[in-house]
């Protein structure tokens, strides 16, 4: 019995570590380039989303955003609009996405521009949305965490003034096609 008790914390530790390792590739990618001056880095904390969702107004547009934002955990963006190795970056980022953890939701190739969206879900709840955009001179990696509603998140594409965020609108279009 005592031995089992000793094993319990070890089990918890291993579970936590393995969960962290799954997400590690993407986090490490963000960390690797967050100080690189070629890129623009944006981080919006869960606290900010929490605070913003407390602001109530009569404005309909704002209320739509509030609905989306109240369940979001955080936003991380890494973007560059004039780099020489956009496609290489895209391929590197692609290799870091743990395919067994994330389900591919959308793939678009338009000319030399590639767009991919993945989601990570547990049960019916989407916990993370990952957007990757790559073209010869552009690169964007965007990650939303929290409880994500795909219909609602596409609304944010109009609100977010970030390069690459407009691709979130494709989520709604692809759903409508289905």
């Amino acid at each position, binding site marked *: 019995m005592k031995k089992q008790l000793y094993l319990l914390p070890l089990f918890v530790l291993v579970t936590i570590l393995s969960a962290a390792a799954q997400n590690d590739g993407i986090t490490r990618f963000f960390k690797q380039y*967050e100080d690189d001056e070629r890129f623009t880095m*944006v981080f919006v*904390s869960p*606290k*900010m989303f929490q605070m913003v969702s407390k*602001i109530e107004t009569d*404005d309909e547009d704002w209320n739509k955003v509030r609905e989306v934002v109240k369940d979001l955990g955080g936003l991380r963006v890494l973007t560059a609009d004039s780099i020489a190795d956009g496609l290489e970056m895209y391929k590197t980022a692609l290799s870091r996405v743990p395919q067994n953890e994330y389900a591919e939701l959308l793939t678009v190739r338009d000319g030399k521009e590639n767009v991919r969206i993945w989601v990570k879900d547990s049960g019916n709840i989407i916990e993370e949305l990952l957007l990757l955009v790559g073209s010869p001179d552009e690169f964007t990696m965007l990650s939303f965490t929290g409880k994500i509603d795909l219909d609602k998140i596409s609304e944010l594409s109009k609100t977010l003034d970030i390069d690459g965020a407009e691709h979130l609108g494709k989520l709604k279009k692809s759903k409508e096609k289905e």
Partner: protein
Amino acid sequence: MKAIFSSICLLFIVHTLPAQDGWLYWKYKDYDGMAITVPSWVVEAGSWFLPERQERKLLRKVDKVRFMMFENNENPVSDRDMKRFTRKAKLRGLEDLVVVRDGKTNVRVMGKERRKSLRKIVVMVHSEDEFVFVSVKGRLRFNDINQIIEKYDKKEKNKDKDAKPLIPSVMKIPVSRV
């Protein structure tokens, strides 16, 4: 002996923590640039001149404002001190709300929330040649902020209604592709 030592350490930590927050301001306030501390009584006096009751109410909840700015390639604040400040601010309960890095410019917004009110907001803009630090301490309730936003929202909407279009809608401008 151990107990005495730990109590002394605890007392030291409790005593020094409040001073850590404004540490960056106190270190650099005498450098060439602009550094202002606005105490609560000045904020209160300033509120008398505001015509709207809601604005007066909100301003009276501000206890202290600190502002520091360096420009024209005279930024003495080192990256090391910035990191140190962020670390210490987090120990004091301030949380990152938004972090943006674009090229060599870093923008960081930190905030502290307690009992449904914003107790402190710190905004820092840091680049090689410029530095801006704004710290607002107070008890800003979300309801008060909501009311102000709603008021301005209504004003903006009324403005849009009253605004006359530059070109009357009946006038058609012939456009042809050359």
